[in-house]
């Protein structure tokens, strides 16, 4: 395979391409400051994201990172194992770049007339760089740095509408909670380092396995809890979910989409890698006195319940989506809750699939909100009444997203959600507590139907208000939404490769 002849560091190409794109955008803005040449800026960013996506897909197809046991190309370690490029990394790079490409294309219209366009695109691309790097980070150092590279541009992006009070407020809250959680995260890292003497994930695991951390159970346990806190923030899970509704509501809608899809995925890849690689279930329990799956079971149930119940009471569409994305974080947490010492790749794989599909459907849903903001129709369910009679294509796409989020076929969300359910039940055969998770999933899915269908109802069933202007058809937004919708549908028949990649990644990680 051609990928094999490249130097080792080239395995990070998806992240490197994104970083380069970000720098090119800065250069473009340096050459022509405050340019509003939307085609050039959005085009550059989109080309970068797509190139990165293409490379990631190519690597995946070429078998980069597949375990050598199965005759694969082997996991590529870079910088002495500070980064690893394995199937999981490539998988999440794909997720991130897809979302980035969609966001960038959609922003083409959303940002029309705004200042700071070049900054916007370069920040988006840099944040995406961080997310792609997170996917490959294999040491708490690189994880933290990549995480911050994700977070810092995100803070700025949320607040980028400088004269919009909502945006600024959202940025502030996102920043404050983000800074707090990264402080907690880094303190957790320091404690883990104290207990084990290493920051590289597999070295930590070795120390734990050798009993080198036996005397530091308390320190290690506290450290793990704090890491969990940082991850909970990034994934918008309870108890660090408070920022999410505010930030998503106030932020420009494409950024909400970005944060709730890609950024969340980045948070999950950390959770998956750190907990599976550094704190393997078999050994960690005896050192710190409890299995972290217990924590994730509780977190998953609470997160999905809080998210869905709060979403059901919202009047504001963006806020409803924000809470629903908290609920979905709860679903994805099942991936970790369902692990056990000798298995769980099924449930983990399902969580990975869910994150990919979620990347399409949730991004699409938020982009529709962006479209509505572009139209200026308002923010509440009522304001969306009868949009379908004026914009059937976009509303059809939105219905696809919503039904997919609710887990109704024939859309991608169906498979991922039901696979999660299936995985949870499979895990329950080993750990009966997972039954509670499965039950919570059922209850929450039922509840989510209510509020998702409420929005469909508003779009399709309610009558439009008499006084609404003709709605424009912005090319970029429409393109992004339609692509997302088509992908949400097409991914269902094409679920085979997705499932293969996801379970492969999960297996590689767990074993």
């Amino acid at each position, binding site marked *: 395979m051609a990928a094999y002849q490249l130097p080792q560091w080239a395995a990070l190409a998806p992240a490197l391409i994104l970083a380069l794109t970000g720098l090119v955008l800065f250069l473009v803005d340096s050459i022509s400051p405050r340019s509003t040449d939307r085609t050039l800026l959005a085009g550059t960013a989109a080309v970068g994201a797509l190139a990165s996506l293409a490379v990631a897909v190519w690597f995946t197809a070429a078998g980069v990172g597949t375990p050598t046991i199965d005759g694969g190309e082997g996991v590529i370690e870079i910088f002495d194992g500070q980064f690893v490029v394995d199937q999981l990394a490539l998988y999440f790079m794909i997720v991130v770049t897809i979302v980035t490409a969609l966001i960038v294309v959609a922003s083409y219209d959303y940002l029309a007339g705004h200042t700071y366009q070049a900054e916007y695109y370069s920040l988006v691309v840099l944040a995406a760089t961080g997310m792609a790097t997170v996917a490959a980070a294999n040491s708490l150092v690189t994880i933290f740095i990549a995480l911050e590279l994700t977070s810092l541009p995100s803070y700025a992006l949320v607040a980028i509408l400088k004269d919009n009070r909502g945006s600024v407020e959202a940025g502030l809250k996102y920043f404050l909670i983000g800074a707090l959680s990264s402080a907690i995260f880094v303190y957790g890292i320091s404690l883990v380092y104290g207990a084990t003497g290493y920051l590289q994930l597999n070295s930590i695991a070795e120390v734990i396995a050798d009993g080198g951390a036996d005397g530091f159970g308390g320190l290690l346990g506290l450290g793990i809890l704090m890491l969990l806190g940082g991850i909970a923030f990034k994934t918008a899970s309870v108890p660090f979910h408070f920022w999410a509704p505010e930030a998503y509501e106030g932020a420009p809608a494409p950024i909400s989409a970005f944060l709730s899809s890609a950024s969340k995925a980045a948070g999950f890849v950390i959770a998956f890698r750190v907990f599976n690689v550094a704190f393997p279930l078999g050994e960690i329990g005896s050192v710190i006195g409890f299995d972290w799956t217990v924590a994730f079971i509780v977190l998953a149930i609470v997160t999905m319940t809080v998210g869905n119940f709060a979403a059901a009471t919202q009047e504001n569409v963006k806020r409803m989506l924000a809470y629903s994305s908290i609920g979905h974080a709860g679903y994805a947490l099942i991936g970790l809750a369902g692990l056990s010492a000798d298995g769980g790749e*099924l449930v983990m794989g399902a969580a990975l699939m869910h994150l990919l599909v979620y990347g399409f459907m949730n991004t699409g849903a938020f982009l529709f909100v962006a479209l509505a903001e572009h139209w200026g129709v308002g923010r509440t369910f009522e304001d969306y009444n009868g949009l379908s009679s004026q914009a059937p294509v976009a509303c059809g796409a939105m219905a696809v997203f919503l039904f997919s989020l609710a887990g109704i076929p024939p859309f991608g969300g169906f498979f991922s959600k039901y696979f999660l*359910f299936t995985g949870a039940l499979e895990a329950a055969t080993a750990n009966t507590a997972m039954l509670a998770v499965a039950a919570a999933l059922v209850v929450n899915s039922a509840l989510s139907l209510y509020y998702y269908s409420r929005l469909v109802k508003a779009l399709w069933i309610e009558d439009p208000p008499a006084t609404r202007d003709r709605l424009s058809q912005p090319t970029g937004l429409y393109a992004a939404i339609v692509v997302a919708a088509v992908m949400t549908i097409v991914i269902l028949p094409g679920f085979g490769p997705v499932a293969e990649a996801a379970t492969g990644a999960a297996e590689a990680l767990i074993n």
Partner: protein
Amino acid sequence: MMIEALIAVALIGALVTFVAPNRVAGKLAFAISLVPAALSLWMFTAFDGSGNALLDGSLAFESHLEWIQFGDYSIEWFVGLDGISLPLVVMTTILCSLAILSSWTPIDSRESQFYGLVLFIEANLIGVFSALDFFVWFIFWEAVLIPMYLLIGVWGGPDRKYAAIKFFVYTNVASLLMFGSFIALVFGLGDAVTSFALPDVADAMVNGGGVQSSVFGIDPGTFTALVFIALFLGFAVKVPVVPFHTWLPDAHVQAPTPASVLLAGVLLKMGTYALLRFNFTMFPEQVETFAVPIAAVAVISVIYGAMLALAQTDLKRIVAYSSVSSMGYVILGLIAYTQFGVGGATFQMVSHGLISGLMFMSVGVIYNVTHTRSVEEMSGLADRMPIAVGILVAGAFGYMGLPLMSGFHGEFTIFFGAFQADFAYAPLFTALAMFGIVIVAGYLLFALQRTVFGPYSLETDYDVGRAPLHDVAPMFVLLALIIALGVAPELIFDMITDAVDPILNGGDL
């Protein structure tokens, strides 16, 4: 690849119709829908399967395709037809064509979207009746909900929003319960199955000794019983069985005529079909264990549904509640677990699909003209629209189970089978259910007498004239089919019994 062709034609047709201009959408959709109808009729003649699809039968039009490998479990695109599903597929395609034809008059806004959704439903319905892998089946099963939700919600009556959401949430929650319990069952079977294909699971359950070890800390017997109950509850909502029937009248009454036709004609059959495929095929022991309560539920559905129908003044509501009652018969036939019982139940599914379709269409035609469905607001319609009313009366007779109509054969075989059943008080239950027929006759005749006969009067001020041909023609077709099946039930009854026998014999022919 015939089944794929059917589904693909309907799906592509849906897409084409969706983007077609409103004014040609109806005719386009009808033309497209004729293709699957014709294809399915050809398949009916070319049917070469035998036995039960789930229990070692030889399938017609079978096709396998690797799809997803989910951990140790493989999910395949696996479709095929046997004697139970083929008649249902044929009924579906025909009913869809006719429903589209009958929508030309009532549907006057956003036509392309409407017909697109109808074709989309058709594709999914065909899928439900032909899919043999659980995931594939479940996708089609759930995918029916969205178009139906929109059909009711967008083109329905005044309370359409409430009805649509109620329908949507009720059936979806039930699906989740059913999904979970079935998946749990598959995991409970352990290494015996490595796929979600229904034949594999059925084989493991019937021939492989079922669940062997305890699951979730529950011992195998209890676990299997729990799964049985959960599956039953899941399907019971769809059927619907009292007390889960409350969504049905709302949905029926608010839905536009063609949607009602599909809802009563095909969607309800999904529930009983699933019951037959899952509960009554995979759990022979549990069927015996739970025979009495299920029979009781069936009889209550029959009687209670009929009583409710008796109390209604809205024609559509009468037909809707009578559907609840009719579905009770089907369940009674299933629980009888004899050749005649189960076979009759299957036959009744097809028959009821045709008859209730006919009834809803007639009511729809009347409504198109009079703009009312209230029994109290009209009388003597026979004077003004003799043909349509004549078909309505004929359909009502079919409902009542008069000989020479398909309803007669269905109900008769069900009662015959139920009398033979060997659970406790079987004859008593059967007798009670038969009493239901009296009530059905009561309310139908009562309603007909009020509306159709007597001196003409109409409380709303619309001119009542003859219905257009494209409204009446589908009713003629349906009536012809009903009479054909009534005269020659063996047209489908033979293949039904052929497919039913393996169930009753535990997989051995």
